[in-house]
């Protein structure tokens, strides 16, 4: 490409001396465009670096140190990490959120897909109204929805318990140690089904109409159209939702913290990993240990994401 082919308004061709080991010559035009591109992304990258990369780097740095009453802060290598890795409480929390996500996400996606299909096919009345209603919880802050559900599920006064005792289930405690997690699963389904259903609905809408018409002409039964044609075509959307929901589920924090105010003592300081991180670093002031926990949890989340990505790619190769 010639140096001057595409230079509309005589730019300042004072290209700053770039790195000497250039592998190929870039035209002045390309360089100028590159600089514009860089200018566009710089504001985002600066804030992103300051408030995301830097804190993460700082957490990793902190996690390698230990503060003792005698001796002050010292480099301690991976001591904090071995404390975390050997902490049964921390891993119990991790297992708890994995169970939580493992139940909540498939159930919610199934419900969301069910309603998205109904809306897409138009086989129920007032679809637009229901879509709007189902989306309401997305606009409710999780703190507020946890508070509302806390009132509804309250073991002594909640209306749900009254209904239950009317049917003979006396002293049914939704917020007892055994039922806390199932209750939170119900709350999470309340919060997120609408959002997921709308995304699936939009994805289903983009399935080409002639494909479906052809299937109808072939007398394909409806359930086959849904499961064999539509479901595979919206798989990218489903995979994206699994990702988003998994990352969210692993960070379970607000619901148990708020519900604990209704049923004190059920949610321990190590109930979920994020609660554990919060109590360790903020309440107990052991930042370095908390930072190590945060890094370990991030690694767990990234490992799960990458594993599911690898799974997806393998499926794609063979299927």
């Amino acid at each position: 490409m010639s140096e001057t082919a595409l230079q509309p308004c005589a730019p300042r061709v004072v290209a700053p001396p770039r790195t000497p080991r250039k592998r190929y010559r870039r035209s002045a035009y390309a360089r100028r465009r590159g600089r514009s591109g860089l200018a566009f992304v710089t504001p985002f990258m600066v804030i992103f670096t300051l408030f995301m990369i830097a804190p993460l780097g700082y957490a990793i740095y902190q996690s390698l140190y230990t503060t003792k009453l005698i001796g002050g802060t010292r480099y301690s290598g991976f001591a904090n990490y071995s404390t975390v890795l050997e902490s049964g409480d921390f891993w119990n929390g991790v297992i708890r959120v994995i169970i939580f996500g493992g139940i909540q996400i498939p159930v919610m996606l199934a419900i969301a897909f069910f309603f998205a299909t109904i809306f897409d096919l138009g086989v129920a009345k007032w679809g637009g109204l229901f879509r709007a209603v189902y989306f309401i919880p997305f606009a409710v802050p999780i703190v507020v929805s946890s508070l509302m559900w806390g009132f509804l599920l309250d073991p002594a006064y909640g209306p749900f318990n009254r209904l239950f005792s009317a049917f003979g289930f006396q002293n049914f405690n939704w917020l007892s140690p055994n039922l806390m997690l199932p209750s939170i699963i119900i709350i999470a389904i309340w919060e997120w089904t609408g959002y997921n259903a709308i995304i699936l609905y939009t994805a289903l809408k983009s399935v080409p109409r002639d494909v479906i018409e052809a299937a109808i002409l072939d007398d394909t039964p409806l359930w086959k159209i849904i499961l064999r044609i539509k479901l595979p075509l919206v798989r990218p959307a489903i995979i994206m939702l699994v990702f988003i929901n998994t990352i969210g589920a692993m960070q379970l924090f607000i619901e148990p913290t708020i519900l604990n105010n209704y049923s004190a003592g059920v949610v321990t300081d190590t109930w979920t990993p994020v609660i554990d991180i919060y109590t360790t670093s903020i309440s107990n002031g052991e930042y370095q240990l908390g930072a190590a926990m945060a890094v370990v949890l991030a690694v767990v989340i990234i490992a799960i994401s990458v594993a599911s990505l690898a799974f997806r790619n393998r499926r794609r190769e063979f299927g």
Partner: protein
Amino acid sequence: MSAPTLAPPAQPPVRPAAETRRERKRRERLEQRDAVIPVELYGLRRGTVTALTTCCVLFALFILAPVAWVIINSTKTQANIFESFGFWFASPFEFFHTFANLFRDIDGDGTYSTWFVNTVLYSVVGGVGATVLAALGGYGFARFEFRGSKVFFGIVIAGLLVPITLVAVPLYLAYAKVHLINSIWGMILPSMVTPVGLYLMRTYVELSIPRELTDAARIDGASELRIFFRIALPLMVPGLMTVLLLSVAGTWNNYILPLIIFSNNTLFPVTVGMGLWSQHAGNSGDQNLYPLIVMSGLVTIIPMVALFALLQRYWRGGLLLGSVAN
């Protein structure tokens, strides 16, 4: 600049300029009708539609139950919230009395009206900032190749996987060093970081702004900034609205970051304030915090629900963007 005037965007769906609201509604309804395959064609049995509609109604009841509970119980006294049946009214009617208490510091935890103003400030400034940064950055990554552009974008995508709550604790440590604890900027600036927003905007630019359009403008001698503001930005509006709504909602709902970085209760957003109330409500004696909690819940959700309902047209299409580019 003497560039010849540009032709209008390469005719995306032509729309009559002066389309009234009613005409638009009508057109949309017709388009929607044509897009749906008539139910009869699926060969469904009679009654299926009724059965499925019933399913929808049942789930709608599940969704609306807490909302109805909040509306009903915002009119009750503390005793009635617990003693009377939750899904029906009970006298005395205390709505206005409780509402007035939102403007007072009842038990020393702080005043709801202050928290509400804070929340609006953080969400609007944070949300607008996030949208501007995401729009510039998304356009930059979609339309330019420069040294490191692939690497930078890769890092941003990796940022999608990093849970925000994990950044909160290290941020607190860093803030302690640079005196950003109990500063509103400590809340607003991190709210401007939305890897999801950037990703959505990049996808949106790639899908909805024809390359020929920007290239043509460039050949005509328009500067990059002019191309961005005059050509790209108007075409990006639906995507921008989606990112704006999602980031405003994200900040509005944020709990853990403000919980960690604010100790001064005049800076709290509503989420932290309400969390504190619910912690104290059980042992607050005769300060009657429960009606306040219910009322503040109602007042907190109304603006967001209204915003999402009003702007439905804009965000509905945008939510899916993340998945189509793969």
